[in-house]
């Protein structure tokens, strides 16, 4: 085949130029800031994590006149591919370059050293550090703690459910906070925990039918509030809880206001929001303002980086519940309650 032999011939002359040096002449000499995000598995359109990052980039494009670019991963790729992607984004003059998700950590470690004048952002990781690296991290466990308080208050059966998408340390933070919140509010309450898939099978973030089946199982065991931290799969558990006339708690964005879930929104008690889009926007803005963020940038309850949504009118009418949640929030911010990050 022509292509194959061409590639073979080319690989023999491997001392050529790099993918970002030639070709499309980079126009980085103009003053416009160029920012880039490299997505996690799933890419744009996952209704969750990556879409939130895109929303931040979009906002920066609209409000800051930033020229944004995006790059998606290929399925089953390795660190070398991520290094190549970040390198070509940095060489093209993008600043900042943001890796969405902890999987980019080893790649950012390598690439950031080569481009000292470019700011690199990484979400959900503080293991790689450097002068030009901003680590954007969230206190998911704090938001989940509040969800636990709300769930314990709203539950009549004393049994609540937690559904995790994929059993990874990040999702265990959600579980730990939620379980602690439930137990602190009602020590006799029972928390049912289930994870949908194990890595490297990431279906648990993507397939609503898995979330639905898990939620139905927990409903059968008497749970009447179900908190799913499972990305797109969580919509299945919201559907199941709604059909059974029980409560669901959403995650990442305010799912009460999500168009795709409008049918079930009356059953969505609240959502634990994680402001990924603002973290992306803030980093781009800081670079444009000439004061790039560096080191750990933490988004917690105090800064509303994580929060509990109150869009559902039924939620607002539960004054007892809201009082308990507000008290817990205050205690966490004041340091009276320390929320565990691992179950």
């Amino acid at each position, binding site marked *: 085949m022509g292509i194959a032999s061409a590639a073979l011939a080319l690989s023999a002359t491997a001392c050529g130029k790099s993918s970002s040096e030639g*070709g499309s002449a980079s126009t980085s000499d103009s003053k416009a800031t160029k920012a880039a995000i490299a997505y996690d598995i799933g890419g744009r359109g996952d209704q969750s994590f990556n879409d939130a990052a895109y929303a931040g980039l979009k906002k920066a494009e609209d409000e800051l006149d930033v020229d944004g670019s995006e790059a998606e991963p290929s399925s089953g790729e390795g660190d070398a591919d991520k290094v190549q992607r970040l390198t070509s984004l940095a060489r093209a003059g993008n600043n900042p370059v943001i890796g969405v998700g902890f999987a980019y950590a*080893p790649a950012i470690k390598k690439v950031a050293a080569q481009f000292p004048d470019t700011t690199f952002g990484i979400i959900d990781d503080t*293991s790689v550090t450097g002068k030009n690296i901003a680590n954007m991290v969230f206190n998911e466990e704090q938001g989940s703690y509040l969800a636990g308080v709300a769930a314990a208050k709203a539950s009549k059966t004393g049994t609540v459910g937690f559904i995790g998408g994929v059993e990874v*340390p990040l999702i265990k933070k959600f579980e730990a906070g939620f379980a602690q919140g439930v137990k602190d509010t009602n020590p006799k309450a029972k928390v049912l925990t289930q994870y949908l898939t194990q890595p*490297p099978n990431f279906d648990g973030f993507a397939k609503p039918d898995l979330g639905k089946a898990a939620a139905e199982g927990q409903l059968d065991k008497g749970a009447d509030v179900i908190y799913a931290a499972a990305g797109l799969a969580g919509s299945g558990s919201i559907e199941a809880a709604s059909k059974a006339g029980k409560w669901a708690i959403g995650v990442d964005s305010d799912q009460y206001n999500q168009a795709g879930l409008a049918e079930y929104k009356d059953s969505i008690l609240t959502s634990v929001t994680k402001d990924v889009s603002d973290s992306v926007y803030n980093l781009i803005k800081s670079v444009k303002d000439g004061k790039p963020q560096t080191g750990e940038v933490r988004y917690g309850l105090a800064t509303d980086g994580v929060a509990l949504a109150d869009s559902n009118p039924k939620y607002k009418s539960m004054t007892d519940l809201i009082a308990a949640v507000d008290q817990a929030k205050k205690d966490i911010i004041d340091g009276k309650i320390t929320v565990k990050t691992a179950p």
Partner: protein
Amino acid sequence: MKKIDKDKLIIGAAGPVLALVSSFVLTMLVLLATGLDPIEPIRLMIENAEYADIQVLIVNQTGIFYLAALAVAIGFRMNLFNIGVDGQYRLAAMISAVVGASVELPGPLHILLIVVVAILTGAFWAGIAGILKTTRGVSEVVSTIMLNAIATSLIAWLILPANFGVQPEGSNDLTTGEIAESGWFPGIDMGQGNGEIYGFTFVALALGVVYWFVLNRTRFGFDLRATGESESAAQASGVDAKKMILTSMLISGGLAGLSGMPTLLGDTHTYSLSFPVGVGFTAITIALLGRNNPVGILFAALLFAFLEKASSNLDVAGYPKEITQIMQGIIVIAVVVSYELVRRYGTRRQQQKVGEELAAGGAIKTDKEVSA
């Protein structure tokens, strides 16, 4: 004899060529149907492949695919469908990473230990399917698929920090700890930040030669091919078919275990949640496309590596990079269809020729069927 070989060669090449051409045409039709320029993405990919850093990625990926596809191919030659290459590859990479990180030995020994552990783990995992088949008659297709799922769960359990896993401070990833530098396989640095060609890529190529030699020049290889053609006939002529099944499953698993080594020894030096997956499934297509022939597989591996790596920047140019997945998917179907078409054509052609020769009163050459 010469003439027949030429025929065989043409017929042998016709299958893959037909499959590739039709998959390219169909992919272009898909692009057209979605209102995109059908030529531009392919031109962009070829342009991408001219860059040194992409070439390094292509070469490295070719080595990984080559090893995994050899693992599949050795099963195919035995009429065994080892779908579990992916699970064997992941489990072997994980276990050998754990062992590699827990010891410190002088360079070559350290690498050797990791490689041997990987081979043994892969062979063990495939061997389970082999034993199930020889003792209980369980189809290896079913058992290897199930072993993939079991490997996933097993790895998820083993990599918990309570067992062998390490969660680096501030990271949300789980790893098996970093292997000491004595366990890194040296690569060839291509300079200017273009990356390294993994040293293990050359081991992969060498194993291709070994594969060819063992299958075509040894008694074992002959037994293996004979059992693949007809188990009962092989048994009748004194080959222990059950032993052959188990042995080839073990070899297949061992090779599958090796296919994680380029990445582990040359790049990541640890097994983490983001270790590449799916290699074993792509390898099935590559082995099919390469017709289980070591040279054919090499070209097929190179083509698939090219499709995967050269498409990496397509989305930046506004084209969905999923077109390469569409292309790979179509190749699978096209390969099966075109091989069958070519096979039928070949048989008909042979019958015609025999008929002609008979009509002409010539003697029938008996060696015609033997090599088919």
